[in-house]
């Protein structure tokens, strides 16, 4: 398993790093897609199949495409050749590096369990049942949230009425 993990991890990292570093926005999204696919594979490796497929469906199939659409709609005016990074690139990167350092140090300093647990068996049936029984409230709230987000996004993106004088 370790090998698969390393390969998938490398893929994910490369993809996401590219997503954050490429100059052209479309290329960034495409790289992101790769990264997300790698993440989905990792989920599968970890045994959360449902989550993995949901990741493909939602992120890759909707969010990334949506981002592509947005980029295409907003980039018509501006030239693709812009400087990639903003003026204070170093500050941002250093902050991110510092955060990684702190997190890594926190991870490293915790005692690690050497026991390898068996793979849990989970079925969609169980997930569904849990959703309906234990997590029914979050489920309903999520439904409301999605509805609100839907309406909000439509309103936001709606063209403004031209007022006749």
């Amino acid at each position, binding site marked *: 398993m370790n090998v698969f993990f390393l390969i998938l991890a490398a893929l994910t990292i490369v993809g996401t790093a590219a997503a954050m570093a490429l100059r052209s926005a479309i290329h960034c999204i495409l790289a992101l897609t790769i990264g997300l696919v790698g993440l989905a594979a990792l989920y599968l490796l970890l045994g959360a199949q449902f989550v993995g497929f949901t990741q493909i469906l939602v992120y890759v199939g909707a969010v990334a495409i949506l981002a592509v659409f947005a980029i295409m709609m907003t980039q018509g005016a501006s030239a693709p050749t812009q400087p990639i990074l903003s003026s*204070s690139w170093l*500050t941002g990167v250093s*902050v991110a590096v*510092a955060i990684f350092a*702190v997190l890594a140090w926190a991870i490293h*300093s915790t005692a690690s369990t050497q026991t390898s647990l068996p793979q849990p068996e989970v079925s969609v049936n169980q997930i569904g049942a849990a959703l309906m029984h234990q997590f029914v409230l979050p489920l309903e709230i999520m439904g409301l949230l999605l509805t609100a987000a839907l309406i909000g996004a439509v309103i936001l993106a709606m063209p403004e009425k031209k007022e006749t004088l």
Partner: protein
Amino acid sequence: MAASTDWIVQNLWLIPALPLLAGGAISLAKQRHRALAASLAIASMAISFLLSLLAFIHVLSLGHAETVKQTVNINWFQFGNEWVKLGWLLDPLTAVMLLMVTFVGLLIFIYSVGYMAEDENFTRFFCFLALFAGAMLGVVIANSLLLLFMFWEIMGLTSYLLIGFWYAKPIAAAAAKKAFIVTRIGDLGFFLGMAWLYSQTGTLLFYDNGAGCIEHSALTALVTHTTIFGLTVSTGIALLIFCGAAGKSGQVPLHVWLPDAMEGPTPVSALIHAATMVAAGVFLIARIYPLMSAHIPSLLTPTIALQVVTWVGAITALFGSCVAVAQFDIKRILAYSTVSQLGYMMIGLGVGGVSVGMFHLITHAFFKALLFLGAGSVIHGCSGEQDIRHMGGLKKYMPVTLLAYSAGMLALCGVPFFAGFWSKDEVLHSAFAWSVSSIPFYMAAVAALLTAFYMTRQMFYVFFGDTHRPAHHFAPVDDKFSEESHGHHAPHESPRVMTTPLLILATFAVFLGFMGAPFWPWFQSFLDGEQPVLSFAPLAAALPLMVVSTGLVLLGLGLGWKLYAGKIKLASQPDPLQQLQPRIFSILSHAFYVDRMYAMTIIRLNTVFAHLSNWFDRWIFNGVVQCVSYLVLGLAWLDNFVDTFVVNGGFDEGCAAVSHGGRTLSLLQSGRIQSYLRTIGLALIVLAILMFWGVKP
């Protein structure tokens, strides 16, 4: 000296109050209410005259058994533990004076209606006249020296107002000022004497049931103390009060205001400067006569005070008559004559006592008022001309005036059987019999001679001879304030409203003297409180002197006749006396240069002092004020500086610092999300490190 409950004594205060009220009422009336003003004044004076008559009858009726002095005293205000009292008093002296003042005053008021008829300030004239009359009557009835002094000052004020009646004329304004200032100088002495008397006796009431300041107990106390120069206190006080009398009555050297006071209208001259105000000084001396004559029992000669009075009177009498000889203004001759006659009155008081001086005062009031009114009639008839060289031959134009004027002139000269004869002779008689010296007698005799001389001169210039006024010469053309402006035509007799008082006064001038003649001295007895005795013995004793004085008078008349009768033809011709003795004449006509002497000494001194005061005020007081102001300015500048730089500046700096700080801090608010995020990230790192470091063992 009991307080009588008789009506007239209780209401004696009405006599001065009515004219004062009338004056007050007239002052509120408008200038065009002439008839109202004149009626109020004359009516008040007439009522006062009737009340004076009542008072006189009352005093007469009380008989001469005891001394009749009836007083009413009222508490005025409290001064420490004592009450300052005021009051009025009715005694023979008061009664005769009241009668004379109201009667002569009434006649002059009536005369003024005609005299001032064409003046536009008619109403104001009567207002002042009424006020003056009230003040004079107040002086007469006052029982307290303080009250007398108050009315005395009011008289001075009204005299100022009346002399300067035509105030737009600078010479009149100057004359009024001079009168006021000179009399004020005398009043200073009066006030000092009054204060001294109060400090010594504790009261200023004359008669207060034995406690008055000139009653026996007070006088004994005053006589026993002596002061500087070895004078008794009573003499000292008396001399100081005499200063006031000398100022008011024009004794040398305070006489200088009287001739200049002729700038006022003629009725004013008649009332104030002949009959009443100048007589007030004499009246004052008569009133405080007990004080003046108070002496230690062992003293045989008259007191120093009375001697001083006599000498001053004698000098004044001679001085006045000398100067009158060389004057050319009809009123100035009469003014100097008044000065001279006032000297006579003082001699009379000094050598003979109250009755002698007062007798001459009463008769003089009548004939001098008559002479002044007659002169006014002459001036009125000559359309304002006052120079006697421009008159003449008026006897055919103004016969009534001539008749009245002659009566007055003869009375003044002392021609036998006229009023002045009896009174002047009393004075001469007493002077001759004076124990100290007979020089005053000789001075008075020479003055009598000169009086006759200058009056004759005046008569010839004015009434006799040809009319030597050039036909085209009139009163100064642009002088609308002189006595007349009703056209330039030939001299004419005055209207009846003016000549009637003249004739009434003339009657008195002729017959009044008989009330004091030696064979029936009613006046003297009345004042002394005794019964008059009709006897010819005193007449016989006085006869030699009467012959001598008559001789002097006739000599004077003769000299005047010789020099002036028929000799004056032209106005430009010099005076015969001037031709004879030009140098003496010029000294006399300048009144012995007294005025110039005053100008060179006192006035110059005053000017120096005024300059000094001015310098002091300008540099010292002003300097101090300027220094203070500079100091304040400096403080203000400093304050401004502090306020601008320290307070404002500091505050501004503070605010700028805050603003700067705020501006600096606002740089954090860049509006860019990413920088906010970075800050959040940093904060998170710091927080995490802190947390871990705290937890890690």
